[in-house]
Every structure is written in structure tokens, then in C-alpha cells.
């Protein structure tokens, strides 16, 4: 009964396939999404430094702040050079909204509960953003330098994801 599964497959194809290409994000929107994701993770890292006393968690948070700041600085320099102004868009807004809700929840937690929730969110956040980079943002980027920066960013953020996943296991 393959017909049963066809509608799902078709829906998936519409979501990820070339159907969206014509209306995919522009470079100024892609830049805005990538920069926003980085900023949100920097904020989450700063919150973690304010809340956590676990040395491994603090080390991770420091790495997130340092690495994402470095990528965002590089992105700003590139956008200035290209005279591209990042453009606000629904994806950036959704990321920010979700991060604000997560921040509210995390701020109510203390100790191990905070550490676990922060790291679990870092795993989920990096998975989501890395998936978006891989499937949409990098393929849709037109400028070669922006594409290259995003590709290096993805390699870096995959390291972060692996680090967070590893850390998550030790906190259980």
C-alpha cells in the first residue's frame, strides 16, 4: 500500500525540495538568520556563566561565546565589505521568539537542573541551526564569500553540537 505514504513524501518534498527554491531566503536574509542564531547562542552562554558552577558547562559556555562572537564579527566585516545590510525576516523572528521562551524557562532553574536544561537546549539549537544551514541557508546563498563563511561556520557548529551531545551524556 505505497499510496498511503505518498502524501507524506510529497509534503516532505515540498518542504525541502526545489519547490521552495524560487522563494528561498535572499543573502541579506540569510546573513540576518545566521547572525541572529549566533547572537542568541552568545546570550545563552552569558546566562549560563551567570548561573552555572559546573566547570565543564562553564567551559562550554565560554567556548560558545568566543566562537560565535568570532563568526559574527567576521560576518559583520564581510557584510560591510559587500555593502549588504542584513534583512529582518520571519525565520529570524521565530528563532528569537523561541530563544526568549527558553531563556525564561532556564532562568527559573538552578544547579544541575539548569545545567541539564541549558545543554539539552544547546544540543537542540545547534541541531536546528545546523540543519537549516545545510539544507537551506548554504545552498541558497548566492555570494561565494558568504557561502564559504557559512560552510566554515557549519563545520564549527557541528563541533559545538558534538561537544554539547557529549556533555549532555555526562550530565544525566
Amino acid at each position: 500500500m505505497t499510496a498511503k505514504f505518498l502524501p507524506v513524501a510529497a509534503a516532505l518534498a515540498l518542504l525541502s525540495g526545489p519547490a521552495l527554491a524560487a522563494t528561498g531566503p535572499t543573502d541579506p536574509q540569510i546573513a540576518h538568520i545566521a547572525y541572529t542564531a549566533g547572537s542568541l547562542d552568545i546570550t545563552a552562554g552569558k546566562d549560563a556563566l551567570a548561573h552555572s558552577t559546573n566547570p565543564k558547562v562553564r567551559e562550554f559556555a565560554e567556548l560558545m561565546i568566543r566562537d560565535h562572537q568570532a563568526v559574527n564579527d567576521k560576518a559583520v566585516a564581510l557584510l560591510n565589505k559587500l555593502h549588504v545590510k542584513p534583512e529582518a525576516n520571519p525565520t529570524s523572528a521565530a528563532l528569537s521568539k523561541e530563544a526568549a521562551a527558553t531563556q525564561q524557562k532556564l532562568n527559573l532553574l538552578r544547579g544541575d537542573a539548569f545545567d541539564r536544561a541549558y545543554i539539552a537546549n544547546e544540543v537542540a539549537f545547534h541541531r536546528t541551526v545546523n540543519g537549516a544551514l545545510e539544507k537551506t541557508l548554504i545552498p541558497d546563498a548566492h555570494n561565494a564569500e558568504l557561502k564559504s563563511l557559512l560552510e566554515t561556520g557549519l563545520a564549527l557548529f557541528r563541533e559545538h553540537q558534538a561537544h554539547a551531545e557529549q556533555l549532555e551524556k555526562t550530565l544525566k
Partner: protein
Amino acid sequence: MNRRQALILTPAVALLLFIPPAAAAPRTHIIIIDKMKFGPVPPGLHVGDTIVWRNRDMVRHTATAADKSFDVDLPAGASGKTVLKKSGVIPFTCKFHPGMRGVLNVAR
């Protein structure tokens, strides 16, 4: 060349052939870090040689030996040096991004 001269020269030639590579002057090799990867490790590394690690990435890295024989901090855009003090196979990584890896093959 007569037979007597040939007999005298032969040991000298033999000595030249057997000068071990370790006696060569120490050399400097460069390993470039770019786009979250260690570049190719040069062949022919020997004890006494120097590795220059050049970080071309936007983020801070390290070149850290698995056996702890070296641990070089490499801020974005910076370089650092390691003098090879022992022979053998030495895997290395970046301790901040452990997916970045390489192996030094150091002869005596």
C-alpha cells in the same frame, strides 16, 4: 684512477653514503589551519625539526598532542611553534574542536 687510489677512495664514498638523515640540519615545516581543518602534515619530519602552526581561521584553536608532548595555543590569525623532541607517531588535535585531527610521523 689507478687501483691504489680506488682503494683509498672507497671508504670515503661509503661514509658519505651512510651519513644518517638525523645528521641533517633541523628544518622548519608549516602546518596551516584553515576552515576548521589541519592542513597536510609535511613528510620527512625528524627529531629537532620545528613545526610552525599557522591558524588562518576566525576562531581560536590549539595544536595539542594526544601524548601531551605539546600543547600550543593558537588565537585566530596567530602562529605557534613546536620543536619535535621525540620520534614516533604522534596524533594531535584541537582541544576546543576535537573533530580536527592530524598525525605527526617523526623519524630520529
